[in-house]
């Protein structure tokens, strides 16, 4: 009887590990679509196995409405700077800001990640590796943001969903080194 309880606990803990993101199935699927598009577009071959929450205020200043407009690379054919105030409502901006304020650290599910992308414990020894935040998605607008860092840089990357496919939209560099 005692062993049955322990076995059940073990099985449950295994299931817990397997599920990766502890969120609804639907949201988790969308998150991995975004993460996989991100790793593919950014040509990333190694990700830190846990998502992270940056402890710098740089990111929060950036995701204010005026911050997004201030400095960015428009990655679409139209090279001009984008006016995010035309793109997003006040509600959208609040959602993006709240999304980055409430980032959680979650374990990435290797099985849901792209093949060939390694999940590693630390990025300290790998210049090619990056650590990422969980995606912040603007509902109904088909835009998704991921902040990521490597050993030598950090940037916020925005993708846009067009014809069912995530494409690069805007990159916001935050820091670079060496």
């Amino acid at each position, binding site marked *: 009887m005692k062993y049955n309880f322990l076995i059940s606990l073990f099985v449950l803990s295994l299931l817990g590990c397997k599920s990766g993101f502890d969120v609804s199935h639907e949201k988790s699927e969308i998150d991995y679509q975004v993460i996989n598009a991100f790793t593919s*577009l*950014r*040509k*990333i071959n190694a990700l830190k196995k846990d998502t992270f929450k940056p402890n710098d205020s*740089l990111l929060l*200043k*950036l995701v*204010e*409405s*005026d*911050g997004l*407009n*201030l*400095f960015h*690379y*428009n*990655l679409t054919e139209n*090279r*001009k*700077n984008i006016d995010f105030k035309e793109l997003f409502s006040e509600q959208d901006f609040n959602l993006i800001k709240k999304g980055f304020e409430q980032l959680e650290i979650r374990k990435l599910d290797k099985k849901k990640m792209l093949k060939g992308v390694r999940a590693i414990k630390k990025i*300290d020894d790998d*210049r090619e590796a990056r650590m990422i935040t969980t995606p912040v998605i603007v509902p109904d607008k088909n835009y998704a943001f991921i902040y990521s860092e*490597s*050993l*030598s*840089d950090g*940037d916020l*990357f925005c993708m846009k969903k067009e014809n069912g496919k995530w494409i*690069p939209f805007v*990159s916001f*560099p*935050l*820091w*670079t*080194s*060496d």
Partner: protein
Amino acid sequence: MKKHSFLKFTLSFFVLLVFFYSCEKEEAAELEITQETEVVQPTEQEIISSKFSLDGFDESSGIAKNSLKILWNEHKKVTLEEREWHEYKVVESVKIDLEKGEITDIAYSLLATMIDDNPAYWLLRMDSRNGEAYSSYFDLEKGGFTGMIYLYNLKGEMSMVRYYQKGNGFHGITKVGNPVALPAPSASRCDFKVTSSNCAGTSDCGLLQSTGGSGCGNGGGKGGYRRVRIPGDIIDRYNDHNNDGKGQPNEYSHTIFMPDRYKWVWVSNTSSGHVPQRGQQYQGIRSDGSIRNIPRPSVSPDRVIKHPSLIKYPCVGRIVGELARGDFKRLRLNKLGQLEGGKHLSKTILDLFQNNSKYHLSIKVGTLSNANGSTKIVRNTPSKGQITFEITLDKRFVQNGTKLVIARTLIHESLHAYLSYQYQNMSTSSFSSLLRHYLSQNGYNNNAAQHRLMTEYGDAIGHSLSVWDNNKLSMQYYKDLGWSGDMLQTREFNKLSTSRKTAIRNANIAEGSAAQSATNKAKGKKCK
């Protein structure tokens, strides 16, 4: 008898009382009638002043509405084609301190006329170009005004724009196919409607032919109207603590950026183009909170900020100062940076940020992991459009490295700031195309793209370093040090000859890094 008398007296008293009461009622009634008859109809001027508001002007109009004050008592009335026009003097509480340029004075007045018992208004802006300040629309012709006039409706939309040369009004501008529906004074003066928000370019807006009125100059053949961008005014504010009416560097408070404006200007055929004129203002905030214009401070706010952390590292602070010195012994010209005269890369960059009130450069010493230096892009006041490029030199690097390699890293990091600045301000230039090309090739990684682009500047970094070092060493050594950090991770580096790559690596190792101290092969001296 007594009883009778008393009755008589009482009766008389009541009669008198009734009389007085009725008199009072009559007086009151008369008063009421008088009040009814004395209801004063407001005059046209009162209607005009009571219904006027500049609330419809937003930032896009380019009119600083809070600075404008209508002087309702300074008024004149002019009749034109049987229509009465009222013109009111307008003063600015904060007058733009115009720099030397083509516009010599800007003045405003308010035009109003009654249409079907309702006032219609136009705010008139007169940009004089010949040094003559004008205060009235009706003096432009006879006074020989030269310049542009703009009429705005109360929604802040430009209703009309017209160029004058020595009092002769040229044709106005209209949106093509847009019917003109303005009352006088437009009709008799060849002024036409312009819908600035809808006119995207000269093809969308055209000159109207003269409608036969007199006094119209010939706009065709001598030039054309162009819609040009006028950079927004910049206002530096100082807390005038000592109320001396002057700004001291330590009183600098903050900078205000007015939005850019788009204006129609007359450009003659002989002119290569319009030179935008930027108004730089300085204002002092008194202790009671009121604001007044102050003369240009003798020392502008320091925009290349030496962080307080440099107090502990005076040697680094000195290097920053020395990097801003010009090279007047050996003039350099960099093919990409378009550097001229005594300028070299680091001077150009430091000068750029020193003279820029929107983009600042801050330099400090701190702790980094696995790097000699880093550059952060800090959106410090997003609502005001201000960005600070914050360069950090690693503490261990400063301790381990020579002054030579510290100066090189400062140039390298400030070049990151420079490239970012250039891209943001010239996003459609060929330079930006190259950066975009590198971005797309490198997984949209800014760090990788910028370091690839920086390999083009390897020699320029070397030249700049040689200027800082008074050319004590061979130019090749400076150029070798021009390559550093992640520039050595690029395919451009890999394409160099093996001997060059070795020389670059050796120079970098010799002069020291965050990871290891300078060796005895170093040609520079430690920073103490």
